[in-house]
């Protein structure tokens, strides 16, 4: 139990110490030290939880009471802080303080209810939450290290942005602490408190620069997450005073199954959808792009959005086989399809990454709503691969931006030749996202099979599988054309460009290695973390046992493919073909290599060619409008089916 308490409490202490550090040098050192400690403890915890059944911890009565009081006080303080921030709202954002008051009112009603359920086990750890801790501590920690140097450059370039780096790092660590809280709390009130802390942190970090745009986007994130918060508080009210199930414990809620727990589960699902930026709530995550890159990386990969899907996956046994669960899957499906299509339109690398994050989370939500062994398996692996590869890509794009001065994909042309290391890391990220035999491919593979065996209503499974098929096609298109830009040979000789700073280099290389290792050792992660979790659910009769495991032969064939990906470049390196080099074909009218040609009237003309963004084929604005309406209707349908 001590590692858990450490992981939940230490980031707060470390954050305070770092905020109070005398100078930037010391601050950097303390950040590295704290990250190392957090990562070490999460690795130890993960090692000790490998293959273990879930463990629940009861605190002594006095201790628990003390924590309860502290968390109640902290919740009130949190509400006050949020209300204080609301002094900067615009008239049209009036709903934000209203939501804060509503949520606090509901919470107080729950806390001071005449009688409330007793909590036996306040904390727990199972293999899924241990894996989450590994992601939060490892990936989140590396992002913090990347931020040390990145923020220095950021502040140097950004004029008129006040340097609030001490508070910035405090918020980063607070965020990590709250994430650990979310994955270890069995006490729903505590879980809710940590949930709201992440909302606060994300709001503050998104509006970090203090520009008008950043503040507005911060408030949008706050407002949408508060909608989810109110729904969550509503679920707690139901669990305290409602006519049905009375409990404040997550495991009992899940154990109660769909007959008893569906109403609170759909309410919490709304909170999960808001936090994981699913349609119709997705706009906040796109707005979060204004924040410095480490923040986007943190929100997109290991924290925030992962908290949302974590909870949805936890509740999956409740959704299994219900119409509400199917509606939830459809919300994920619509999100997956629409955001994959829109990502094709984008030129800004960060926006491509943002849309692809939302799309991937949509895929995870699709899996959670179905809630069979196979889909949970796919969902958890998707969480793992997405966290690692997306963090790598975000930080990679951030560093590339500092190197080449642009985050436009067109400007990344020839990166393989201009910055081989940087390009290799970006390529590993892209491959990890959608090509690596053990990444997305495997999850999609499992999803198709699992969806077709869904029998909530006739045609349901085919519908989900068709959505997945149509959504995967644009994914392939936008990733491949990005890779195409990276591998293109530059038309003119590249000029020497700056080196990658050390801290950023450490974070990027570690994430690249982790992506490789996660792909190569995927069966181990499966055995150690995923199977024990699904097996425990099967053993307690919450989800049906299923025989559709991936056969060994498929695993072997996938390994051969992965080995091919590894050895082909090696073989190429060893036996490089000796061919003569020429410049690219320009109808024989080349002037200076492949860069210019002799055009009409004998003029020398520069070669320019751009990627396809299909803007005449995919119309972003109307598509998004229909998707918002459709998904809002689906949320209502889900609530209706649950209540």
């Amino acid at each position, binding site marked *: 139990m001590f590692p858990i308490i450490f992981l939940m409490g230490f980031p707060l202490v470390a954050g305070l110490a770092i905020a109070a550090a005398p100078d930037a040098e010391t601050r950097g050192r303390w950040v590295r030290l704290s990250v190392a400690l957090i990562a070490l403890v999460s690795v130890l915890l993960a090692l000790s939880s490998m293959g273990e059944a879930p463990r629940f911890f009861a605190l002594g009565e006095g201790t628990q009471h003390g924590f309860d009081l502290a968390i109640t006080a902290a919740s009130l303080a949190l509400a006050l802080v949020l209300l204080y921030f609301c002094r900067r709202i615009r008239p049209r954002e009036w709903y934000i303080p209203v939501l804060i008051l509503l949520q606090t009112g509901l919470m107080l009603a729950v806390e001071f209810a005449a009688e409330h359920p007793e909590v036996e086990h306040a904390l727990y750890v199972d293999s899924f939450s241990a894996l989450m801790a590994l992601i939060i501590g490892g990936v989140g920690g590396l992002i913090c290290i990347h931020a040390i140097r990145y923020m220095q450059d950021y502040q140097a370039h950004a004029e008129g942005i006040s340097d609030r780096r001490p508070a910035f790092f405090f918020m980063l660590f607070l965020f990590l602490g709250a994430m650990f809280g979310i994955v270890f709390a069995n006490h729903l009130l505590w879980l809710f408190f940590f949930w709201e802390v992440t909302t606060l942190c994300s709001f503050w970090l998104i509006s970090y620069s203090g520009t008008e745009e950043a503040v507005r986007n911060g408030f949008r994130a706050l407002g949408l997450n508060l909608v989810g918060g109110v729904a969550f508080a509503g679920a707690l009210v139901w669990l305290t005073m409602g006519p049905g199930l009375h409990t404040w414990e997550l495991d009992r809620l899940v154990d109660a199954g769909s007959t008893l727990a569906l109403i609170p589960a759909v309410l919490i699902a709304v909170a999960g959808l808001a936090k994981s930026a699913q349609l119709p709530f997705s706009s906040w995550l796109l707005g979060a792009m204004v924040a410095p890159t480490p923040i986007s990386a943190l929100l997109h990969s290991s924290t925030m959005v992962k908290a949302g899907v974590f909870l949805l996956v936890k509740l999956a046994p409740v959704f299994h086989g219900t119409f509400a669960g199917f509606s939830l899957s459809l919300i994920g499906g619509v999100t997956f399809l629409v955001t994959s299509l829109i990502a094709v339109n984008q030129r800004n690398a960060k926006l491509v990454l943002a849309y692809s994050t939302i799309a991937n989370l949509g895929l995870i939500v699709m899996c959670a709503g179905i809630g069979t062994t196979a889909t949970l398996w796919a969902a958890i692996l998707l969480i793992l691969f997405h966290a690692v590869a997306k963090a790598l890509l975000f930080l990679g794009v951030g560093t590339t931006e500092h190197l080449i001065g642009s985050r436009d994909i067109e400007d990344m042309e020839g990166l393989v030749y201009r910055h081989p290391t940087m390009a290799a890391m970006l390529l590993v990220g892209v491959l990890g996202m959608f090509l690596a035999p053990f990444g997305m491919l495997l999850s999609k593979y499992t999803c198709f099979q699992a969806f077709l065996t869904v029998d909530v209503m006739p045609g349901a499974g085919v519908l989900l*599988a*068709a959505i997945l098929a149509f959504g995967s096609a644009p994914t392939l*298109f936008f990733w491949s054309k990005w890779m195409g830009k990276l591998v293109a*040979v530059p038309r003119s000789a590249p000029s020497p460009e700056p080196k990658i700073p050390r801290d950023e280099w450490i974070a990027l290389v570690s994430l690249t290695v982790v992506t490789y290792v996660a792909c190569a050792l995927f069966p181990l992660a499966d055995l150690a973390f995923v199977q024990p979790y699904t097996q425990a659910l099967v053993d307690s009769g919450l989800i049906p046992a299923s025989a559709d495991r991936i056969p060994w032969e498929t695993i072997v064939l996938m390994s051969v493919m992965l080995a091919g990906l590894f050895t082909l470049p090696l073989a190429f390196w060893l036996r490089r073909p000796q*061919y003569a080099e020429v410049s690219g074909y320009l109808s024989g009218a080349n002037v200076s290599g492949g860069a210019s040609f002799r055009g009409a009237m004998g003029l020398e003309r520069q070669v320019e060619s751009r990627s396809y963004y299909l803007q005449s084929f995919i119309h972003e604005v109307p598509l998004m409008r229909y998707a918002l309406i459709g998904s809002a209707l689906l949320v209502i349908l889900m609530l209706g089916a649950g209540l």
Partner: protein
Amino acid sequence: MSAYTWWLAIGFLVLGPLVGALLAGIDRILTARMQSRKGPPLLQPVYDVLKLLEKDTLVVTHLQSLYLWGFLFFMLISGFILFLGSDLLLSLFALTVSGIFLCLAAYSTNSPYSNIGSARELMLTMAYEPMLIMVALGFFLVSGSFRVSDIVQGSPWQVLQLGGILIGFLFVLTIKLRKSPFDLSASHHGHQELVKGITTDLSGTDLALVEIGHWYENVILLGWLYLFFAPWGLAVALPISIVLFFAEVLVDNTHARLTWSSALRVSWWVTVLFGVTNLLVLPLIGHSS
């Protein structure tokens, strides 16, 4: 997996190019006859490739050969999986990865013609990919498995149950075989606006690799087509699938090229109307799983 399928898979690796070259040769003769020409000898594609292998290879960047190796490697894997009787979905994924490597090879040369060719190739991939997945899903629904060895032993009625899917598959087969009206990533004729599209900057050994890769691909596609009729036995199923395969030559010679946007739109509509609808009504026409 039996000894028989192992032989089949190894046979694919060894004899695949030869069969593919014969298919290409017949294709060229048929095309010529439709245009009232005599046409080249049957083995002309083989002579072409042998000549390419003897020529000097010019590259824009050395890395382009690496991407082509990737193209060929995943093509071999895809066919190996198919003929081994293993997982159809996995074979499809490998085929897709292989296509992406070919695009990367063209992208890496960064000439405008290669760029347009590879962008169009990717768009066509986006167009046909959902339909190919529908084919795999359809087989799963009728035979209860993605395994080729189970699909081959499926119900003799499966081709009727999957009628819509078969129509959709024949439609996207035109794209996969780079036939008109969908030959918009690499035209057969060097003098057009695309020059040679995706293969513009490939020459000598590199171009030979692409040709060999396409031979393999054609055998794989013929294999997919065969699966629809497979329960009727080799003697019936193979002739039917070969006839259907060469029906594409007729389509090629009777249609003008489409733009990419109409190609994309039309193939997605076909996928929905024939593919998805077929899957949805499948429970009504009765399936064995």
